């Protein structure tokens, strides 16, 4: 706490009251963010982005990336909830930081914004690889697009591209549509399509390719078209979020854009809105879900049984809330499903929401005994992953729970009793005849 308030005093006094909200499960939005720069002038050139963060209540701690006093944790406790690395050319981080400690930082459930740029260092590439993002191998390559470049590009090599292929997700980019294209000048990266943790937020147009603009192309470019990702995000399995951008300029203060071939002249590029909304997502102001425990009981009862019987009717419910940045709001969706699972789902039902955060359904236990699980696996683009399960055994009928008399068996019952009666009569007649 001591250290915390010192760093707070250094930056901005008016943020003090907000300190009482620290990062936690109940309050998942990050508060303390370390910003690593390779040049302190970035502070002013990217002031809109930083000021926006500050105004939203973040406590930014600017440090040079090679500052020898850098430390992410002290006495095993992390000092920061988020990390912004705007130091594309840094070869070595100062203090105790390296790519492994940053990976550990992410693995502890904390968030990261990483920006590379042209001629990004191996360190930055290494961190990106750890997160499943592969930058173009050629360190001098840039994304070039001869059709959707910005007309404000003065160099004429069409490396300042105006990208508008954004991921369609209100959770990540906010409800307000980003009208203007996003300006991007930087290095391309690609994602492994089998990796389901990373996805593109901003992709290049089909006509883009990645090459060194100052030299002639000797062979076809390795990265072309919409396979090129400009900005990607990763949500790790522990719901830590990472934004990886191929351009540092993306976050800078810049305005006015006109896309080549387009008549629309925008006063402002979409960058500001894009990075603001993206930072809201990455710092868990949006799309963070939490679920209460799974509740189940037989129809007509309220207590959870230790074991079900086959063909029992049961009711199942789970509460899910979404973090709005300030408080937990009931989550509303019609696609939350529960599985009644034993090696494969025997029952798969969509839960109905009651707008107060309670998701509920009822079903009949299948005619199979074994150790089942109630499973809620909720993976939706942009939202944190919910993976809940609760084990419950299902037993067969007890010996006295079967039907006592089966109507179809009446002939057999009849046969039994007539045989017994017949035997009695026969014995009687045989013994006492004559």
């Amino acid at each position, binding site marked *: 706490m001591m250290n915390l308030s010192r760093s707070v005093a250094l930056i901005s006094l008016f943020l003090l009251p907000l300190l009482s909200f620290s990062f936690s499960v109940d309050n998942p939005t990050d508060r303390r963010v370390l910003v690593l720069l390779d040049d302190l002038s970035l502070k002013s050139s990217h002031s809109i982005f930083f000021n926006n963060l500050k105004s939203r209540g973040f406590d930014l701690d600017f440090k040079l990336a090679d500052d020898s006093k850098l430390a992410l944790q002290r006495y095993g406790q992390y000092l920061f909830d988020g990390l912004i690395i705007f130091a594309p050319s840094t070869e070595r981080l100062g203090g105790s930081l390296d790519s492994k400690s940053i990976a550990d930082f992410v693995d502890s459930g904390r968030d990261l914004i990483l920006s590379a740029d042209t001629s990004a260092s191996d360190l930055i590439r290494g961190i990106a690889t750890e997160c499943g993002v592969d930058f173009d*191998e050629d360190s001098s390559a840039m994304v070039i697009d001869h059709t959707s470049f910005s007309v404000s590009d003065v160099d004429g090599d069409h490396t300042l591209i105006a990208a508008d292929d954004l991921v369609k997700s209100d959770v990540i980019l906010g409800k307000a549509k980003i009208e203007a294209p996003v300006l991007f000048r930087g290095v391309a990266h690609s994602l*492994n399509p089998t990796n389901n943790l990373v996805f593109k937020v901003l992709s290049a147009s089909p006509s883009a390719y990645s090459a060194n603009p100052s030299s002639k192309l000797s062979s076809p470019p390795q990265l072309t078209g919409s396979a090129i990702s400009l900005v990607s995000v990763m949500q790790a399995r522990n719901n830590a979020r990472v934004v990886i951008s191929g351009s540092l300029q993306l976050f800078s203060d810049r305005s006015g854009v006109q896309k080549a071939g387009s008549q629309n002249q925008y006063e402002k590029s979409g960058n500001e809105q894009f990075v603001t909304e993206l930072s809201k997502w990455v710092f868990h102001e949006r799309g963070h879900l939490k679920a209460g425990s799974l509740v189940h009981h037989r129809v007509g009862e309220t207590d959870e049984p230790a074991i079900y019987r086959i063909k029992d009717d049961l009711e199942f419910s789970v509460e899910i809330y979404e973090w709005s940045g300030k408080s937990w709001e009931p989550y509303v969706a019609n696609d939350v499903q529960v599985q009644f699972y034993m*090696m494969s789902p025997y029952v798969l039902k969509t839960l109905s929401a009651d707008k107060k955060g309670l998701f509920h359904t009822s079903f009949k236990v299948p005619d199979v005994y074994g150790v089942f699980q109630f499973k809620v696996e909720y993976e939706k683009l942009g939202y944190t992953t919910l993976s809940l399960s609760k084990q419950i055994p299902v*037993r067969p009928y007890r010996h006295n729970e079967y039907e006592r008399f089966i109507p179809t068996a009446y002939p057999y019952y009849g046969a039994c009793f007539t045989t017994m009666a017949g035997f009695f009569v026969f014995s009687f007649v045989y013994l006492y005849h004559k």
Partner: protein
Amino acid sequence: MAALESPQPAATTTAMRHAFGNVLSVLILVLIGVLAFSIRLFSVIKYESVIHEFDPYFNYRVTQFLSKNGIYEFWNWFDDRTWYPLGRVIGGTVYPGLTLTAGTIWWVLNSLNIPLSVETVCVFTAPVFSAFASWATYLLTKEVKGSGAGLAAAVLLAMVPSYISRSVAGSYDNEAVAIFALIFTFYLYIKTLNTGSLFYATLNALAYFYMVCSWGGYTFIINLIPMHVLLCIVTGRYSPRLYIAYAPLVVLGTLLAALVPVVGFNAVLTSEHFASFLVFIIIHVVALVYYIKGILTPKMFKVAVTLVVSIGMVVCFIVVAILVALVASSPTGGWSGRSLSLLDPTYASKYIPIIASVSEHQPPTWPSYFMDINVLAFLVPAGIIACFSPLSDSSSFVVLYIVMSVYFSGVMVRLMLVLAPAACIMSGIALSQAFDVFTGSIKYQLGGSSNSTDNAEDTNNAPKDDASAGKTDKGEEIVKERSSKKGKKKEREPADKPSVKSKAKKKALVLPLETSIVALLLLIMLGAFYVIHCVWAAAEAYSAPSIVLTSQSRDGLHVFDDFRESYAWLSHNTDVDDKVASWWDYGYQTTAMANRTVIVDNNTWNNTHIATVGTAMSSPEKAAWEIFNSLDVKYVLVVFGGLIGYPSDDINKFLWMVRIGGGVFPHIKEADYLRDGQYRIDSEATPTMLNCLMYKLSYYRFVETDGKGYDRVRRTEIGKKHFKLTHFEEVFTSHHWMVRIYKLKPARNRIRGRAKKLKSKTTSSGWSSKSEKKNPWV
């Protein structure tokens, strides 16, 4: 003999001798019981009062449940801690006889304010029941050849090594009570056959019910008795007694057997039981024939015979046709795998690796006969000969019993246990007959001139040996038995007739005195060898509980208590609902001792599930991790004997895992694990072998122990010494490395990109050649 000779003057002497003989017999039987009980206590004395091996742990756990929750809960017990996630309905899949017996004993003792723990009761159930089994043997043999043979057989059974191996204190398995039930059922059958009493027939059905409750081996009874009945009918020995002995057993026995949940409808549906029904029909046909023969004139009878025979043939034909159709229509041909492997010994090893993988399902080797029944093997032929002079219904039964059990024991080591009582009975008969002949000759030679043979016989025989001690009243018993066969009820009147005859015969069969004495001494020596062998076997060979191992070395006794150490670790350091995967051998122990959920256990009812675990063990790490993760496994337990030279470890069982796994999942091929048909783990081993999970889990960090990685079981240096585990982490290794427990690592939080890996792995040229092939994400 002399007493029978002169019934009128020596009536009181005879009564005295009878009383004396009976008291002596009772005393001897009590001693036999004590012997049977105490010879099985070596395991408790040498080790401790602990449940042995694998299956007994399950029975112990079930008994605990029974004593805690009562019989109805036991009946309906759905166990969610084994066979995860399938679970197992214990009440419906277990033979409840043993459990109910021990539970009842515990309950009775507790209500008598004798506070024994359930474990103590379980440990001592088997020795107590082996005493009962000896007494049942006495009764059975007495019915066949008189009480002398009975006592001899009882003594032999009390210490036959084959039976000791399954009934030492702590060996709390079904066989412990089932052998008693088996012998007792046979006794009641013979008793019914000899008396024709419906009372004994009913008792017989009840004893059969107890046998069905106790052990799957009851099918041996329900096939052997019909065979004997058929034998009697074919040899023209049909009698109403035979009918009384058989028909109620089939009807009542089948009804009662169907009451046992694990048998249920199998009692009428599977082919193991069909023989009894077929013979049931035949005996009725035969009974009808005899009845008609009685009421018709011989002439009319001939006509009737042709009629009945033709009708009978037709009926039999139809029944056989139906049976064949039924058997053919069921998928396994109506025979369960274990039974099929009895008929065709190669069946199991050809088609069902899971049955063949159990060592006790393998055919025995010749030395094991000598080990398990010792001198009885030589006495049995003599006993068979004795049974043929004269052949009665009951002696033909024991002959049939020995023949069948010899065959079955040749198929499966485990069924040596069924052979043991038969061998004891036969040897008992042989011994007692031999003693009879020799002592008779001695008596004749010594007392040829004098008339005081009574005294000579008494003084000569009584102190000799346990077996010969029973001789006093045995001689006359045999005569009585033989006579009872010829003229059943009217025993008194014709009794002196055959005895005179036998006396005449005796005189003709007399041997020289010296020969008799030498032969007697040789027989006693033989018996002494048997006793020495049995005590040795009980003390050294069959008392090890197998969860605690000891080894004697130069610097003293070493105790390997690794199993309990690891199970205790599991129960103290893991969550109650964690799942532990291991090969199925250790399933029962894990649930009983560590109280953790297991994936497969020794009740091998689901081959696919076992094959899944086998496949995981034979797969590379990543694939294994995925299999285990899909089964919610948290911990993997392997047994490794390489450090201390414990041969029955998982590496030695590994080929069975491969076979069983490959039987269901064909991508596992046995040939991939063998180098030129040889199973090896040294540097010549195949890469598949060196990369499979079982190898890695067994030998992880093994090289750190001696710097070379020398495996003392396989007697070689291991092939791959330095490697890391990527998906598993070692959490526990027991003191002697016998048990190693690994934990599954959680799924990786992030998925790495490819670039760096490929770059570091391949040279730049390799890199470009890769990218030429249009790599979509680089």
